[in-house]
């Protein structure tokens, strides 16, 4: 059996986080959605499928996997897995599984695979097969990933297990069951750190350093090569690789390679890669009247139905010191938010610069690209030509909404 993890047409529901990545690259628990599917369905070959604009970037990112290449997956039965499916454990699939109207996965017999030319054909084939209903959550919005995150960290703990492979200073306090701690190889927990496992496991992945006076509440996942600087990590946080985190963070996901070095509160937020949150940047995640939070999605305000929703911050965005973000704020990719003196609007289009209460077009694409190159090179990573082309295409595609925002908020 071969496996194909696919992204469907709902990717815009996950903007701004999916401008530069497929929806199956988003995180929930200790893994990305793709990684969890691969853990649960070990197969000799796993293929990936996403919208066309991402294909060059994804082919470079996953050189050993066929991307949007069905030919490479012929000759065997194919398990088609919805990349948004939040699967809780391994399953035997011999037909089509659905959760309500959403396809979760479908086993397509090999003779039917060879007759398909793309994802659309595969989905049509799946629709023609008898299906079975299963109670499996399929993420529809970013806030679904945030609300499911604590549960998935608990579930993912079994892939790590209670182990201390790195250094744990004798003064570190594990407050709660000690068998709910994983400290990866090369990780170092400095003196006077509290790991609170009373409500769930704490996973500190390889190479991560946790500085003194940090408190980590479980369930939480701290990815590889991160640095926590006297941080207060409340329950339900997941940080991807190479993040530097300080201040207070609660029930938030950071994709990776981002800095929130200083004090300031981040709650119920999803932050992309290469983001820098200036000192004291703080988001609200609860309205003063305790009503449900509304967010902008495809130009319209949508009620999330959730009482707590923080901010969604796109890749390469930077905020100034003292930036305050309203409940349910969405900031596009490559924005520059000088949030001193005024709250930015609840939706800031990609590549915008917000300053003195106004949205401006900013310094232009070249300058933004230069900043991205600089911040990535600090972590010894190069911005690829494919990524540059993708950024340019999104810059062009979002010109009109930026123009509108500049007019509205100048």
């Amino acid at each position, binding site marked *: 059996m071969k496996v194909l993890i696919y992204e469907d047409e709902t990717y815009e529901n996950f903007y701004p986080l999916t401008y530069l990545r497929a929806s199956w690259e988003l995180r929930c628990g200790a893994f990305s959605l793709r990684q969890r599917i691969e853990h649960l369905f070990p197969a000799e070959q796993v293929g990936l499928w996403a919208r066309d604009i991402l294909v060059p970037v994804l082919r470079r990112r996953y050189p050993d996997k066929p991307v949007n290449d069905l030919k490479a997956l012929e000759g065997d039965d194919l398990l088609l897995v919805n990349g948004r499916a939040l699967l809780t454990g391994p399953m035997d699939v011999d037909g089509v599984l659905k959760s309500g109207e959403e396809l979760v996965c479908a086993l397509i017999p090999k003779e039917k695979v060879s007759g398909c030319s793309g994802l659309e054909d595969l989905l049509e084939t799946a629709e023609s097969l008898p299906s079975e209903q299963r109670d499996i959550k399929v993420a529809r919005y970013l806030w679904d990933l945030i609300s499911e995150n604590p549960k998935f960290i608990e579930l993912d703990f079994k892939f790590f297990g209670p182990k201390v492979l790195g250094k744990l200073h004798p003064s570190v306090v594990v407050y709660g069951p000690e068998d709910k701690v994983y400290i990866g190889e090369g990780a170092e927990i400095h003196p006077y750190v509290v790991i609170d496992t009373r409500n769930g496991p704490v996973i500190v992945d390889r190479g991560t350093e946790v500085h003194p006076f940090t408190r980590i509440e479980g369930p939480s996942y701290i990815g590889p090569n991160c640095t926590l600087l006297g941080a207060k990590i409340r329950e339900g946080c997941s940080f991807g690789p190479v993040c530097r985190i300080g201040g207070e963070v609660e029930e938030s996901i950071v994709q990776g390679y981002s800095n929130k070095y200083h004090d300031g509160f981040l709650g119920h937020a999803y932050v992309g890669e290469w983001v820098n949150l200036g000192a004291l940047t703080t988001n609200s995640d609860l309205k003063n009247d305790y009503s449900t939070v509304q967010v902008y999605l495809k130009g319209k305000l949508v009620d999330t139905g959730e009482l707590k929703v923080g901010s969604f911050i796109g890749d390469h965005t930077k905020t100034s010191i003292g930036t305050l973000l309203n409940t349910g704020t969405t900031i596009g990719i490559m924005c520059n938010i*000088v949030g001193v003196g005024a709250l930015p609007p609840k939706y800031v289009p990609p590549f915008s*610069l917000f*300053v*003195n209460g*106004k949205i*401006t*077009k*900013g*310094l*232009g*694409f*070249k*300058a933004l690209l230069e900043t991205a190159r600089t911040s990535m090179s600090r972590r010894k990573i190069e911005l690829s030509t494919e990524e540059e082309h993708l950024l340019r295409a999104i810059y062009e595609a979002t010109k009109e909404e930026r*123009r509108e925002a*500049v007019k509205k908020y*100048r």
Partner: protein
Amino acid sequence: MSQSVAERVKEVVARQLRVPIEQVTEEARFVEDLGAESIQSLELVAAFEEEFDIEMDEEEALQVKTVGGAIEYISRKLQEEGR
């Protein structure tokens, strides 16, 4: 009689950068002579767009270093649009 482009540009510059209008000569450089910080330069571009109801390319606009350069750039833009 309506104001010339040059007069309007100078008024916008004086207002945005909070400098006396007599300092806003055509030779005056935004950064060195009028003290425009990077953020003020962006606001100046936005203010020109609003005053003249034109669309300025941000990279091109930020290449303009003097008040005279801005007058020339905006006049050309208006001419292109047949105004």
